[in-house]
């Protein structure tokens, strides 16, 4: 029931999220007497009952966090029956479709229900979602899921082909969302479902050809649609880490490096201009001196290598306390000095493309965009 009403602690039949790490979580429907196996050992549902949300739960071989289900967490761990929509697109769709409590929305196809849950969160309790799916199995599974999540009263799932049979309602929707193979052929039925006083339309297509056909259909005179816009979102999650950039030996001694690296003293040095903000003596990162080889041998066995920090100037801010909580390498061994700074970088592989979002306003009987 946790999608709809939330208690402070786990109750029977709650759908909870078992959080084991960023990329490792799963939903769980709590049933008395059942046991679920995880990589950290077994979770006995009986001992989950009454457990506080947002706190750690000890399994036999470790611990996990027990979280309340939200549409966003659901998106991250739902059982995939199709390709699904992710948070950045969902957020944009919700805003661009002018959704708010009370909105009536038509959606096709239901797919795995990722967007449906987010729509329901926003339009409930006064609004309603009519969601159409042409695959019978997915349709039944979605219906069961909405029931399990306590959302049945806000959503109706229909098994039909939207292009041939249209949406189940006419002149009733504030917004229509399409995520189907041939969206251009459903523009007409979308217009029929929308209120004659106007509404918003969105079509999600992974391919540009579909998008082109959809835009052309939307722009046809007499379609009733205007303000056609297409956009694409790529949401990127950064890793925060500390990096060490070795400083090459250019044949000067310690004290000279010190002078060279700290701009100031006679204001002539520009060995490492990148390390400073213009006109600022404060390093953006910090210059550290490598530990001596003897020390290094001792460190290699230690998990938390100590660094002898070169005390550059009294004004320098000591950062972070030197803890190894950030992802990052230990200083490279090749050079004596290294420039150290906190940065964030993108993972090696990211989603470079999800789909093109085409939005339009339905305003029949009124002239085109100014």
């Amino acid at each position, binding site marked *: 029931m946790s999608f709809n009403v939330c208690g402070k602690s786990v109750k029977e039949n709650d759908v909870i999220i078992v959080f084991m790490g960023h990329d490792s979580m799963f939903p769980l429907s709590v049933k008395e007497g059942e046991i679920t196996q995880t990589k950290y050992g077994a979770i006995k549902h009986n001992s989950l009952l009454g457990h506080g949300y*947002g706190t750690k739960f000890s399994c036999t071989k470790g611990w996990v966090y027990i979280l309340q289900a939200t549409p966003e967490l659901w998106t991250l761990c739902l059982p995939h029956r199709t390709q699904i929509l992710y948070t950045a697109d969902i957020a944009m769709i919700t805003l661009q479709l*002018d959704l*708010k409590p009370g909105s009536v929305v038509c959606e096709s196809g239901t797919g795995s229900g990722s967007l449906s849950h987010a729509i329901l969160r*926003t339009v409930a309790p006064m609004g309603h979602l009519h969601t159409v799916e042409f695959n019978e199995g997915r349709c039944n599974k979605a219906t069961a899921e909405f029931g399990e999540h306590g959302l049945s009263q806000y959503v109706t799932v229909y098994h039909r082909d939207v292009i041939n049979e249209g949406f189940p309602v006419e002149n009733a929707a504030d917004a229509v969302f399409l995520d189907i193979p041939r969206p251009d052929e459903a523009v007409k039925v979308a217009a029929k479902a929308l209120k004659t006083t106007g509404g918003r339309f969105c079509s999600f297509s992974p391919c540009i050809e579909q998008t082109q056909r959809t835009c052309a259909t939307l722009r046809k005179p007499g379609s009733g649609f205007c303000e056609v816009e297409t956009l694409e*979102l790529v949401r990127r999650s950064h890793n*925060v880490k500390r990096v060490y950039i070795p400083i090459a030996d250019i044949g000067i001694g310690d004290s000279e490096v010190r002078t060279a690296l700290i701009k100031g003293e006679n204001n002539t040095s520009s060995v490492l201009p990148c390390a400073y903000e213009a006109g600022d003596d404060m390093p953006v990162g910090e210059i550290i001196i490598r530990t001596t080889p003897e020390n290094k041998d001792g460190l290699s066995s230690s998990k938390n290598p100590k660094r002898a920090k070169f005390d550059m100037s009294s004004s320098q801010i000591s950062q972070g306390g030197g803890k190894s909580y950030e992802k990052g390498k230990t200083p490279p061994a090749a050079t004596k000095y290294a420039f150290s700074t906190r940065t964030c970088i993108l993972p090696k592989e990211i989603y470079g493309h999800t789909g093109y979002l085409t939005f339009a306003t339905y305003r029949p009987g009124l002239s085109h965009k100014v």
Partner: protein
Amino acid sequence: MEDGIALNKTVILQRNNVLKAVKLIPEKVIVFERMRFKPENAVGLPFGSVFEVKNGDLNPVNSSLSLEEMETAGEDNRNLVDTHGKSQTLNREDLIQMKEDGATGKEIVQSLVENSSSFAGKTVFSQKKYLKKKQKKHLAYLQLLKPTSRLICKLYQEREPAKICHMRIDSMSQLLTSTNVRHGSKVAVFETCSGLLLGMVLERLAGKGSIVNLHPGETPVNLFAVSHFNFPDEYWDNLHSLPLHKLAPLLAGNSFQSTFDESNKTTCESEVPLESNDSSTDIANENNSKHEIAIPVDIKAVENLNEKACNGPLKRKLSLSDKEKTAIRVERQKKRFNHQKAAWELLESRNMDALIVASRFHPTPIVLSLLEVLAVSKPFAIYFEYKEALMELFVRLSVSGAAINLQLTDTFMRQYQVLPERTHPHVMMRGHGGYLLTGIKVRPFSAQQEK
């Protein structure tokens, strides 16, 4: 909300992708894009109607704005000679003369086409481009739209990005989605985005639930954009404002009464006490009233608040007697005091459903304090223009163990021109949309063990 354009409501004006929010006040001349007009003629028409400005009035236009396809057009630009502006025989004076003679925008564009020696040699595409450019300039058309979150976001993003901390529409949308804001949520918000976020959250609460608006300074100056949404009065009842600097006393366990008494002593020494012969005998209320007038306030925000506090359209200030003014002020102060109290109580229960921060201030101290009032297992989302501050906060939070599922993200948003044979991303687009840090509050392991 009733449909159709009405007086004393805010509408969004649109012309050539330029947006402006204005309140339609009877007989008041609106200036927009060098057009001047009175709103009366638009009343009762549906939102989205197109108007032409003529003689200071709005005239509904029904024709489609795309001009008929030209008969003659070149194949490509091999015969096009770059004449550096000499192909047009009409000059500025001619155009001004035409306008004075009462020519419509359409006629002007038509004669520009006729007097252009190069127009016929252009390809259909560039003819269209030329027409679009000239229409933009000479047609005094505009559209009146219904204010929605989407349009108000767009308006601020295009016109006044600095007032919303350069947040782009994708960041705004994600702030609301990632914090699971919905009907009935209790949301803590700290923003310096002119009230845009408050408005968006209020829209999603739709009259149930509450916002605690923590604001810098003494009075909420960040309510201006909220007034664009045309919210019914009961929506405003859910918006409780409290100065951010009251947060530390609150978290230290001080009572509301003692905190506000304390601040009165320090900030209200110089001002004249309010001579209210009103029936308000509540001591705390009076204290609070004093507290209010000592502070320089943002006129717009107060006007706005004033209006809402009075529960009805604000009469012209001039027509009010001093006594009435005082009564209104006392009423307003009483309301604000009640809201502050409500905000205090909500925060004191440390059971907020969501936390949203989007400001020009460094987020770390704000977020670390505000996390205290968020219930466990609830989401938070922080926007900041620069990633460095969020990187710092990210590390602090991951070390503290008070949050999981931490994600520092930005979004690459690309808009497309989708036309037959001419599909490509827009040539110019917003380069920067800011960064988001999202996560879920949990009880740190150590705290749990103590329990």
